[in-house]
């Protein structure tokens, strides 16, 4: 009954536009769209029709300030070039990996415990927590437990297939005013900022996590964040347990 014209999944394309396809069918449509200009045009038409159902309104008050404050450190700033006294990138990475290595072993065990504990969580927390719990509930969830160099588990990061990460500030100490926690990816030659994640008082933060991320760390920085982590301000680190 479902109409396709030649190769084109025209019915599914409309259902895709209203976000009503099942996940496997959505993937099929997306694969088709990637190689089919006429279906991209058809989709554009559907999305335009649907966009006309919503009027223009004034943006929510204070939202822009909150948005800009939540962005990671401005990446248009030049990466710091090596200053004579600074350790080389290789040396810096070695130092980072050392800290991360300590935590990684604990992470695998802790991840399992973490998942079990989280299901006991509060029911009526805000929606970000719901999304985060949902992500954590997935049977194949990628979870990194971040532990201090002393081995205390203080935070978890769950990463979804779409690349959204949720940081659970389970036991992160609350920072002094003017400071913020910043999450880092340590898999490349230099740490990459994954975003600012609050001062330890908000239970869950959302971050964007690039595909392939396994090792992460969290550092305490000045509010606004920094381009490169302050080495002695690393609080905890860990790797994704799969």
């Amino acid at each position, binding site marked *: 009954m479902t109409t396709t014209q030649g190769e084109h999944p025209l019915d599914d394309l409309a*259902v895709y536009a*209203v976000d*009503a*396809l099942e996940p496997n069918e959505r993937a099929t449509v997306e694969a088709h769209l990637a190689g089919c200009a006429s279906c991209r*045009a058809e989709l554009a038409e559907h999305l335009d*029709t649907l966009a*006309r159902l919503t009027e223009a309104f004034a943006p*929510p008050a204070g939202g*822009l300030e909150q948005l800009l404050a939540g962005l990671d450190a*401005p990446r248009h700033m030049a990466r710091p070039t090596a200053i004579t006294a600074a350790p080389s990138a290789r040396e810096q990475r070695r130092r980072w990996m050392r800290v991360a290595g300590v935590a990684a072993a604990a992470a695998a065990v802790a991840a399992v415990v973490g998942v079990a504990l989280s299901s006991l969580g509060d029911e009526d927390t805000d929606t970000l927590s719901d999304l985060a719990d949902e992500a954590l509930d997935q049977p194949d969830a990628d979870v990194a437990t971040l532990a201090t160099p002393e081995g205390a588990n203080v935070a978890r990061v769950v990463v979804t297939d779409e690349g959204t990460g949720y940081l659970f500030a389970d036991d992160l100490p609350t920072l002094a005013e003017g400071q913020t926690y910043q999450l880092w990816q340590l898999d490349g030659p230099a740490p990459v900022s994954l975003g600012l994640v609050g001062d330890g008082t908000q239970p869950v933060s959302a971050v964007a996590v690039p595909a392939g991320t396994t090792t992460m760390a969290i550092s305490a920085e000045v509010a606004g964040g920094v381009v490169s982590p302050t080495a002695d301000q690393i609080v905890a680190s860990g790797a994704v347990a799969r």
Partner: protein
Amino acid sequence: MTEQLGQRSDAALVAGVVQRDTGALGEMYRRHAGAVFALARRLTNDGQAAEDVCQTVFTSVWTSPERFDPERGTVRSWLLAQAHGRAVDHVRSELARRRRHARDAQLAPLAAADVETSVQQAGVAEDVRRAIESLPMHEREPVVLAYFGGRSYRAVAELLGEPEGTVKSRIRAGLAQLRRSLDREGVSP
């Protein structure tokens, strides 16, 4: 600088975001966040959830502006599609959560009543409502249940007691009809 931003096209603003220009992001926000928020609130019926959706959408514009593909529509329809997808995720996880707690016996209200209240409570503009109401019922129901109700086509089929394939083709026919109705009502994007 601000004047220049105000004159840039939406697509030029996306290019600005790719260049890590927070001013371009701010201008996009000023132009479209209200609609993004309104759509999210319409679906979730929850102001806090809608604010979260709005922040998430614009944060993802900042982290992945290269996902914008002009072949798949305008910046505005791209942003609204993202808002819709995230709001639907929220609605479905709320439904799943309520179902888990099984206190809500009213999970499947009568479809017809549901369609009417969805559109009425959604606070859509009068001309848009007229366009929606001009659709024949067998097309209006599946489109409204899916788009405003956040339901999958399978859930819609179950609710309406129609075969899944029928629901799919009616959603497609309904969107085409809706487009013509919006044209007739003079509703511009």
